[in-house]
């Protein structure tokens, strides 16, 4: 980000549609997407992306950005390198704007141990303007957050989202009154509305610094005045810093120490102590109560209550989804639907079709003809070797097998995510998950585990205690196949009888239960509270789901294809140098003796270490060397034992080196043990899955 660029932060509670709005505002430009509540790094989306590509539609859509900063006097120059299209010449000189999609915050003032990007951004003084996204259905809570942002004295726009859903619940709003109360421009939006209208352009043009203030109890106000005098020269407004200090925010305390001399810091701390003594309850509860009281007052003034129409079909479905009796059958139906969509349609029908009609008939022969004439044998074989060649074991695996299945998986997953079903699942499973040391909130990371283990470990941050985060990471690493892996697993299992899949997934499920119960008993600490908003059930927009699945698949391709190729090449070189044979000899006692696997499993495991699904895909190539039982055991050990490089790195970052190494060692040994048990157990019972 260049120093001349301006940053607009999108802030709001969890699930109010910040990401959707951000997506619409910077349509066409590059951005990454992560699981809700776990955006560890700012998701930045440069609005210039659309203009650079000469997308005139995009440019019109985004032309408001010049106006936004008109009120803030500064030199506006054309952004360097921000134009090659024909529109550039006609463009007025502009400041490049970066939209920052922050993670959902419940409260900006209180807290500080967690990584709330919104709070950190505001505290660092890096935001130049704010878009506060409110949920019309819960205006009080959204306004409480808005009131907290007001303390930072930034030009702000309030977007009241999901106005249509609120209307369905019998809530209407007196918008002129709301504008008068919050003292900034306000824009109503429908849920998931993609149209960023001309009104929006005008609105941003008139972003104002809000003048509405929360009235805190007298002692707090006195302390705030004293702190504001002491803390002049802070990177953020002194009153905001004072409020953060009174609320006990850790980062504000760090700022106090780093930005001010010891004497000022001591004086400020004395003011805070004095204010604390005036109340019997912690100051942060006093401050939160005052903020909520003001928010409530405004919400009451602007809300017009109407009789709500009866529950519609979707609402009723929502109730049944968390119902003790109907919830479980619905969950099973959802899993079954997922299996048919991903496992049957994606992994079997589409992959087979692509293999027969595209790869076997056209692409592979074309590559063979093209590269077959290469003069050097080594290079030719590096491309065309049936076992380790780049064409067969990297390109075909990634494009022909993993990618199509993954696309189907992401569409299914996106559908679930957008439908609002997942919070219901959390409510349904809260009690069961408590036995594993988690709460209903644990559903989110665990379900994400079926998408990507790395993302899931990151999203475990939403869990409240260290114990829960540790257990979730452990379970994710030891029992959850990620989407690409799952896709290839289904492909490997497809020709085998259903008992093979049942045994594999059954064993995985049972061992997750057992390890969870054990971990809950061993790791000290109690469970946390479960309070979760059940967002309304809505019919997901097909276009949005498909779009996101396309983006995610593309992201996968960019990350995985180089890794696939590197792994293939590495194994090819190792094979030619005789290293693979040596490794096979070396690991034979464990692989053959303990797990009963053939030598080819070495290359499968080697590839698994680089990317899990790469190993599983390798298995589809060498499956002729394996018996059915060996396939099941290999898939089990791969799922449990080996995390991919990414998730290992994230684990290291989240849990520290000691815990991570210990965790990985335990999981490795455990996988061998259970894998051996599975092998011997099936042998003893005479199960061969033939």
């Amino acid at each position, binding site marked *: 980000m260049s120093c001349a660029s301006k940053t607009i932060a999108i802030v709001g509670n969890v699930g109010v549609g910040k990401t959707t709005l951000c997506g619409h505002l910077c349509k066409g430009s590059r951005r990454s997407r992560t699981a809700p509540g776990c955006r560890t790094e700012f998701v930045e989306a440069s609005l210039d992306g659309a203009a650079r590509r000469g997308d005139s539609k995009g440019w019109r859509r985004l032309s408001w950005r010049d106006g936004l900063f008109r009120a803030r006097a500064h030199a506006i120059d054309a952004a360097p390198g921000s134009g090659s299209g024909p529109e550039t010449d006609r463009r007025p000189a502009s400041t490049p704007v970066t939209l920052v999609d922050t993670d959902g915050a*419940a*409260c900006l003032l*209180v807290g500080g141990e967690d990584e709330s990007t919104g709070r950190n951004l505001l505290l660092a003084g890096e935001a130049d303007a704010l878009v506060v996204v409110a*949920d*019309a*259905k*819960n*205006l*009080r*809570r959204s306004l*409480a957050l808005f009131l907290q942002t007001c303390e930072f004295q930034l030009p702000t726009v309030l977007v009241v989202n999901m106005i249509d*859903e*609120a209307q369905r*619940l*019998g*809530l209407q709003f007196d918008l002129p009154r709301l504008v008068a109360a919050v003292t900034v421009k306000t824009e109503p939006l429908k849920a998931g509305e993609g149209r960023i209208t001309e009104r929006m352009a005008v609105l941003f043009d008139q972003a104002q610094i809000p003048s509405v203030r929360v009235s805190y*109890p007298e*002692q707090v106000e006195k302390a705030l005045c004293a702190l504001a005098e002491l803390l002049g020269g802070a990177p953020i407004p002194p009153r905001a810093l004072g409020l953060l200090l009174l609320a006990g925010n850790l980062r504000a305390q760090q700022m106090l120490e780093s930005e001010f001399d010891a004497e000022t810091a001591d004086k400020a701390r004395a003011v805070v102590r004095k204010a604390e003594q*005036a*109340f*019997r*309850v*912690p100051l*942060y*509860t*006093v401050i*939160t*109560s005052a903020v*909520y009281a003001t928010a*409530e007052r405004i919400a*009451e003034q602007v*809300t017009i*209550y*109407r*009789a*709500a129409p009866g529950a519609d079909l979707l609402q009723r479905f*929502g*109730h049944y989804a*968390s*119902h*003790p009796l109907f*919830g479980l059958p619905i969950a099973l139906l959802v899993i079954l639907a997922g299996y048919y969509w991903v496992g049957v349609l994606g992994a079997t029908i589409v992959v087979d079709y692509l293999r027969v009609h595209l790869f076997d008939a056209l692409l592979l022969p074309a590559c063979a003809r093209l590269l077959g004439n290469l003069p050097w044998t080594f290079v030719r074989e590096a491309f065309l070797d049936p076992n380790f060649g780049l064409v067969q074991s990297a390109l075909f695996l990634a494009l022909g097998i993993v990618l199509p299945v993954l696309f189907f998986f992401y569409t299914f997953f996106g559908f679930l995510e957008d439908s609002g079903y997942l*919070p219901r699942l*959390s*409510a*349904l*499973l*809260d*009690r*069961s998950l408590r036995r594993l040391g988690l*709460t*209903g909130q644990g559903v989110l990371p665990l379900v994400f585990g079926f998408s990507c283990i790395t993302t899931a470990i990151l999203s475990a941050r939403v869990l409240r205690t260290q114990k829960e985060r540790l257990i979730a990471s452990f379970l994710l690493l030891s029992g959850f196949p990620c989407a690409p892996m799952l896709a290839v697993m289904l492909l490997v299992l497809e020709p085998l009888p259903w008992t093979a899949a049942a045994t594999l997934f059954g064993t995985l499920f049972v061992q997750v239960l057992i390890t969870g119960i054990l971990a809950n008993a061993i790791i000290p600490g109690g469970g946390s*509270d*479960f*309070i*979760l*908003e*059940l*967002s*309304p059930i809505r019919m997901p927009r097909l276009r949005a789901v498909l779009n996101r699945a396309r983006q995610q698949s593309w992201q996968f391709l960019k990350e995985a294809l180089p890794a696939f190729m590197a792994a293939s090449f590495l194994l090819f070189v190792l094979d030619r140098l005789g290293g693979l044979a040596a490794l096979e000899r070396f690991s034979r006692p464990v692989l053959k003796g303990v797990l009963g696997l053939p030598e080819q499993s070495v290359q499968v495991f080697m590839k698994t270490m680089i990317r899990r699904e790469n190993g599983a895909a390798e298995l589809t190539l060498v499956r002729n060397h394996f018996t059915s039982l060996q396939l099941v055991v290999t898939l089990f050990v791969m799922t449990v034992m080996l995390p991919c490089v990414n998730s290992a790195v994230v684990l290291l970052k989240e849990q520290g080196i000691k815990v991570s190494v210990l965790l990985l060692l335990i999981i490795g040994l455990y996988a061998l043990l259970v894998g051996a048990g599975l092998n011997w157990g099936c042998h003893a019972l005479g199960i061969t899955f033939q």
Partner: protein
Amino acid sequence: MNHKHEEILESIWVASESGSATMETIRSRCPDEFSEEGLLRLEELGHLTHSGRELFLTQKGKHKARTLVRCHRLAESLLYTVFALDWEQREALACQAEHTLVPELADGICTLLGHPTECPDGKPIPPGVCCVTQQQMIGRQVIPLSELEVGSKARILFVKPKNYDRLHEITIVGLTPGVVVTLYQRSPTYCLRFDGTELAVDHRVAQDLFVCPISGDHDAPSPPPSPAHCRR
């Protein structure tokens, strides 16, 4: 008997709660200075006796002091849970209220607050007649959300959390006093609806939310009136 005499009786009760009713401890707990005359007057009225430096309440004195302390602590609880006043303001108002509250009104406040056993400072509130007969008044009293029937509506009167973090969590999801909730499921988690929001909470949280059931078919969530409206 004037307010000063009542303050002395109250101080003796509070001092004996801490196990020592000597003249010094009583003086330290009494907001007003008192003289020998005041003590003699109380002795004449049959409210107290003494033995050396220690003072003792008679049955009559105990009854009077108990009523005063009950009124004071109930007033404090009301000012804390409903009006969220800080300690100094609470203390000042409760000191005035204890002399003027009639027992019926004190019982009304007690019922409204769900027959609390402790005041906000953690001191015991002497139980009244209403606490003993609370079983008969089941329809009128404040109950935890966990005891609310499925499908019924209730107004949140106060939150009595086991820890401040829980209070913070409960506040930031919008479950503040005055909000009308409808409970539509109790198991496996408590699912409730208020304004335009649906929430799921676990048993421990549901136990800390104290509500007053309201009857009628108010489909639209009404703006929260003062909690006193709850009493029928």
